């Protein structure tokens, strides 16, 4: 195994695989890439998503999760991109480490002269990635660029602070999915599901198909957190009731779950007295939101966005730490894997550009320019308002932009017959009529570089929901 690589990808799920493949297609040699995956196979959580509906955008056909993952894994195998399984990254740190201290001349260490690179002034700040596994033990890999693709985790019962006993039989929907789809085991017979996130909806159908009785899906919000198609195909088609504006206020059962108490909530999400209903069940599944897993990123000093809990990134999907990119659910939680792949391909390409010093920032000229004048490039902030909760990216640098830039975001409420409005400073430049927008479905707008260039003084782009 090489201990020095150009690109290290943390995570071998859909994001990591697509990023690695794209970096290779952009000119990084396979052998200079390394994918590090903590589980026993490539594909990430898609491997337990055995239902279909994946890949409609990317491949124009309906695939299961493992099939979708396999499409990308096969590209990795075909290109012979190295990967490590059962390997966990425990730390990522930046290059101002020991090597530079050892050297009087900093540049002699950090300047990497790549044979195929015509730019002799290329500077990549080295990242040290420490990982461990059974065969290699504890080891450190040096990388010119790192792509963060660690995915996300599910919000737990504890984080929801649901009162009651703490018996067996409470699972996050994803854990239950693993038991059913990977282990072939049933985690319960009579099920109540809290939260209408997509995994919860999928599991309502899955458990029903395997003979369990799903009694109810309760959703705290007045709208579902999942895709409309999942409500129809996973609940409606099986006659499973969905109660909006309802939550679980007590869990009964000292050893195994015996039942839960469900209550309606008011507009402040507080339970309404008198609406309590006890439902006997042996299993409670939780599908109450996903949280990007950014402990490694935080350790590296990556700035995180308060709304997404993912890294703050620019148009290149690069974080505030130079040469560290993010994509997929670690960046912001997606609904469709197709968009994960697309985003990851961008991250992979941009990381390749960075490694090959095609980005102005990591040439000597760029570095010096930066030192002399902070705003060597024009930073255009993307601001949100009127129901738009965040955007990815949240900042654009014009000279790094592709011809067309996709801005993805979520809205904070359900909007019908509304308008997505885009302003360049205070000038309205785009109005898109939307029949319906909901928090459970990611939205996007596409901005043309040429259009932005028409506004040389532009400082701020604002995206809002209007009537």
């Amino acid at each position: 195994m090489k201990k020095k690589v150009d690109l290290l990808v943390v995570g071998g799920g859909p994001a990591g695989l697509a990023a690695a493949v794209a970096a290779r297609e952009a000119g990084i040699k396979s052998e200079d890439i390394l994918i590090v995956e903590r589980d026993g196979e490539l594909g990430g959580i898609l491997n337990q998503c055995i239902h279909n509906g994946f890949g409609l955008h990317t491949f124009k056909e309906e695939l299961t999760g493992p099939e979708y993952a396999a499409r990308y894994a096969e590209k990795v195998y075909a290109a012979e991109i190295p990967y490590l399984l059962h390997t966990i990254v425990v730390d990522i740190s930046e290059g101002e480490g020991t090597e530079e201290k050892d050297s009087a001349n900093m540049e002699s260490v950090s300047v990497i002269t790549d044979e195929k690179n015509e730019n002799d002034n290329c500077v990549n700040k080295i990242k040290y990635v420490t990982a461990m596994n059974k065969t290699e033990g504890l080891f450190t890999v040096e990388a010119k660029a790192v792509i963060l693709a660690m995915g996300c985790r599910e919000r737990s019962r504890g984080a929801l602070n649901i009162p009651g006993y703490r018996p067996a039989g409470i699972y996050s929907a994803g854990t239950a999915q693993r038991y059913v789809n990977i282990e072939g085991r049933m985690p319960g017979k009579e099920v109540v599901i809290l939260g209408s996130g997509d995994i919860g909806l999928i599991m309502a159908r899955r458990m029903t198909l395997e003979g369990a009785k799903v009694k109810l899906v309760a959703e705290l919000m007045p709208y579902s957190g999942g895709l409309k198609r999942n409500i129809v195909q996973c609940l409606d088609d099986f006659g499973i009731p969905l109660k909006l504006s309802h939550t679980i206020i007590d869990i009964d059962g000292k050893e195994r779950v015996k039942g839960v108490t469900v209550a309606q909530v008011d507009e402040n999400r507080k339970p309404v007295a008198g609406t309590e209903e006890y439902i006997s069940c042996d299993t409670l599944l939780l599908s109450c939101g996903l949280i990007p897993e950014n402990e490694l990123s935080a350790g590296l000093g990556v700035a995180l966005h308060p709304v997404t809990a993912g890294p703050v990134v620019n148009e290149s999907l690069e974080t505030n730490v130079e040469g560290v990119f993010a994509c997929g659910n670690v960046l912001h939680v997606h609904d469709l894997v197709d968009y994960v792949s697309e985003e990851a391909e961008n991250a992979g390409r941009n990381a390749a550009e960075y490694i090959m010093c095609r980005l102005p920032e990591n040439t000597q000229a760029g570095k010096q320019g930066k030192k002399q004048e902070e705003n060597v490039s024009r930073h255009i902030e993307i601001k949100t308002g009127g129901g738009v909760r965040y955007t990815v990216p949240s900042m654009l640098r014009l000279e790094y932009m592709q011809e067309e830039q996709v801005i993805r975001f979520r809205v904070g409420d359900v909007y019908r017959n509304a308008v997505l409005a885009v302003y360049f400073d205070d000038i309205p430049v785009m109005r898109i009529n939307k029949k319906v927008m909901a928090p459970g479905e990611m939205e996007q707008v596409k901005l043309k570089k040429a259009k932005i260039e028409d506004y040389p003084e532009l400082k701020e782009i604002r995206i809002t929901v209007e009537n």
Partner: protein
Amino acid sequence: MYDVIIIGAGVSGCAIARELSRYDMSVAVLERASDVCEGTSKANSGIVHAGYDAEPGTKKALLNIQGSRQMEALSKELDFPYKRNGSLVLCFEESDRGKLQELLDKGRKNGVGGLRMIEKEELRKLEPNISEHVAAALYAPTGGIVCPFGLTIALAENACVNGVEFHLNTEVLSVEKMKKKDETNAEPEAETESEKEIETEIELKTKTGYRLKTSKGVFETRMVVNAAGVYADVFHNMVSGRKLHITPRKGEYCLFDKTVGDYVSHTVFQLPTKYGKGVLVTPTVHGNLLIGPTAEDIGDKEGVNTTAGGLDDVLKRGGLSVEKVPFGKVITSFAGLRAHEDGEDFVIGEPEDAEGFFDVAGIESPGLTCAPAIGEYVAELIRKRMPAPKKKNFIAKREGIPSVALADGAKRQELIQKNPAYANVICRCELVTEGEIMDAIHRPLGATTLDGIKRRTRAGMGRCQAGFCAPKTVEILARELGRDMGEIRKAGGESGFLTGYTKTVEN
């Protein structure tokens, strides 16, 4: 016939077991749960109290100061996490300064070292997140924090290594005194239905000591230690006419993510306010933030459920001590029951009418702190009744499960070289490896349940609360114990995870 049977494998029972294991006597611990540390000992603040709370002259005061002084050395001897982080008691009203002074005086009387009053300015330097509304505080540098599971399990393992038998899943149903023949009174005996029972009756009259009927058969012993937590009154009242009454006093807690583990560095108590007895805000010895407990007397000795009101209360009252409680960082909540005896003090020793039956009852706060001292104290009482020589081969030292998360690079390398399973991370939040989980299973008194693994290794104690690692840990448990995954429980009893297989039809 055992020399001593201890009812209850909580921290008191295990501490006593460990002390008795120094001597040549046969000792058994009977525990109804599937593991040690399954009751009050697992759900508390994890505080080593400095000792200024208890009324001077009480058992609580005496044992607290001893326990607090012993804890550090014991933590090294038995390898469990302990840290002397110091305690603060906040006073919110100028008019309450007198109460702080009273505490300080009490503490000095109890022999607590280093106590002093500190003013707002110094306090804010010590604890930048402390509430604006604090007037002054009592500072107790000897206060500390300990892992309650770590302490209890360490005591139990060491006792086990030194020959104490642990009978888990063994619920004591009744305790009765066996009398000498000549002492037997002439009362008509209960009807006997079989020869076997007649035999039993004869035995009962010819032996001294106690007979314990349990869910796993009958145990006989010369002496009994009643360390049954909230049930100690039940067993006491089986043998003594001087009745005890223990009220379970529920305390609810919220535990926060390690990212806010340094929100305070000391254990921050409150003087009782008009809002009631205060809650504490403290770092845990593992680096989380903990806020709690509430205090509610309940009737149910099994009532370890949290309540919406209780959890709200915890967060609200925590907000009196610190600015901006980080609500969004709660990772779990739990409730524990303190064994509150009507007489307020610990009840330790033999009732007059039950020789050889030693109560260790009413062990509420500062019971965890006191445990090492209680162990010595009770062992001494027993030795006075039943002298026994010291064991020559007593092993005082215990080495805990190595922690890959806490190890530095060199130590990690060393561990991995010894067993590559130390490089296979199972719990990603707490960085717990397969090697550690295997250790937890194969140690003396090894884990057999998911909770057992959790309390020995911290697998599943992190921010995802076992979402990712539970299926893997269940698989390792099944593999190492030679069982099917379906047999693995969360915590014994009917707490199984899996109810069957897919693709099966049930009628």
